[in-house]
């Protein structure tokens, strides 16, 4: 029964990873001082390093990973494709576009909350478009194609914005942000994104049973008693909320939503519904560990978390694609 211990083990590892993230850094801090700082003792500078810098950063990495892992696993179940991901449906791209837009027009200078709100709005617009498409079409292939179109359009619009960027500062900001990072995140920013992640995650978890039924294809799932339309709408909505909130917190971080579910599936009998929780935990763990790596690798400019995630994730993506047998299509 490896399945029974999978989630508890991942929770334990995640706690260890987040704690380690508090220990490690440019100036390593011993475990007893981190513990003291966490429970409110110790000296003020230790508390500042742990509570204002390292802990929020590690928690942001975990939450972003969890939201992306959960969304990826749910979308893969819905679309019955191990390569589906928030990115594939254009949700990340549209969220990035909306965020880039507010940077371009300097709206972020007016109010720092415009950036996360815009990303969430962008994800919700993409989600709403997909929800309408999901009602109108019964075909999953059509839905993916609409996502690809959405993604390409958002990418082109983003390039246009960067071409027109009025000063090098905003261009640098945009690039920074599009590469994805959890550096310098505060609890305030986490608290703004978290409600959307929780709402999206709850929707996905409540409706996950239908993803098992979809294993047999839409015709059979229909016959099993699944309300296909509702399933599509809820999964797209939940994934949209969670992804938008994660883009708001960390920018566009790709591939973790594909890699984590792929690793989890063999342990849960390849059942999409049962893969959701462990995928979220594993994706969170991966990003926390990757972010520790980003901080420890001695480069002149700190590497972006999204870049590291893509460097690891993209080859895995290609490998999964090549493993894929065509018999199921």
């Amino acid at each position: 029964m490896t399945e029974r211990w999978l989630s508890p083990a991942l929770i334990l590892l995640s706690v260890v990873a987040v704690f380690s993230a508090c220990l490690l850094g440019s100036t390593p801090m011993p475990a007893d001082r981190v513990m003291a700082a966490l429970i409110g003792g110790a000296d003020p500078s230790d508390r500042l390093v742990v509570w204002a810098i390292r802990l929020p950063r590690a928690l942001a990495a975990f939450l972003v990973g969890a939201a992306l892992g959960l969304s990826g696993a749910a979308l893969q179940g819905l679309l019955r494709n191990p390569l589906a991901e928030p990115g594939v449906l254009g949700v990340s791209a549209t969220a990035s576009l909306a965020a880039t837009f507010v940077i371009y027009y300097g709206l972020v200078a007016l109010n720092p909350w415009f950036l996360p709100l815009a990303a969430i709005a962008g994800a919700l617009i993409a989600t709403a478009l997909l929800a309408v498409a999901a009602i109108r079409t019964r075909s999953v292939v059509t839905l993916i194609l609409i996502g690809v179109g959405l993604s390409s359009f958002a990418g082109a619009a983003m390039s246009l914005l960067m071409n027109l960027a009025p000063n090098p500062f905003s261009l640098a900001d945009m690039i920074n942000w599009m590469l994805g990072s959890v550096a310098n995140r505060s609890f305030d920013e986490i608290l703004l994104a978290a409600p959307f992640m929780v709402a999206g995650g709850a929707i996905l978890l409540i409706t996950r049973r239908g993803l098992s039924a979809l294993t047999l294809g839409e015709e059979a799932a229909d016959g099993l008693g699944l309300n296909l339309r509702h399933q599509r709408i809820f999964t797209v909505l939940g994934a949209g909320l969670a992804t938008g909130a994660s883009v708001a917190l960390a920018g566009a971080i790709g591939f973790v939503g594909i890699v984590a579910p792929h690793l989890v599936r063999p342990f849960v009998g390849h059942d999409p519904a049962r893969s959701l929780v462990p995928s979220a935990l594993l994706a969170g763990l991966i990003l926390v560990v990757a972010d520790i790596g980003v901080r420890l690798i001695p480069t002149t400019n700190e590497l972006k978390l999204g870049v590291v995630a893509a460097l690891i994730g993209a080859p895995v993506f290609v490998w999964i694609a090549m493993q894929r047998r065509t018999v199921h299509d």
Partner: protein
Amino acid sequence: MTELVAENLTIAAKDTVLVEDASLKLTPGEFVVLLGPNGAGKTSLLRACLGLARPVSGRAKLDGQDTARLSPIQRARSIAYLPQIRQLAWPNIVRDVVALGRFSHGAALGKLRGADAEAVERAIRSCDLSHLADRQADTLSGGELVRMHCARVFATEAPLLIADEPIAALDPRHQFRILGLIDGYVQRGGGALVVLHDIELAARYASRLIWMRHGKIVADGPPETTLTPERIEAIYGVRARIDGVRVEISGPSHIE
């Protein structure tokens, strides 16, 4: 007693009429076989009976209620459906696939409770899958896969069953075996509506044959009265000789 009644169903896709004015009835204890050439509208008729496709006119009723208006759960508990295209997106464990038959009863894979677990085990035993129950479905042979899908359908323990070409592409032994399983379900009091292309097997197992051609039901009755060389020629355009339940097809007819 659950009864499925289709009244004057007409189904169209865009401007093409797929099924025209079709009426049929299915009650528990009946083994009804739907016969007809490819494109006769059999699958469309089944889907409309299930309420999965909306007819242009006419209605399909389950105990007097329009199947298109039933909730998916209500419908699924009353009629188990085995579609013609049987996909499997993931290499699931056989027991989990069978357990999907309990979806309409609220079962969640991996943690089956009381009645659900019992129904799944009964279905696995009845389809002789006990030794394969913990295997991954992508390691099964074609015949074993169909048995798994049958077990999934039986696990629902619905009063009615609709199966679309369950024995296509199976060897003769497996064809008998699958039809024997469906026959067992009928003996236990279920009602089955099955699409087949093998006329002889249909005649052997069916209590009633429904003959379709060009979207219309042209005959509906027991094999003894509806199975004639003239009918086979009219429906399929082939010459046939009939001797009891033996049907010998000798080639295409040249009348058309």
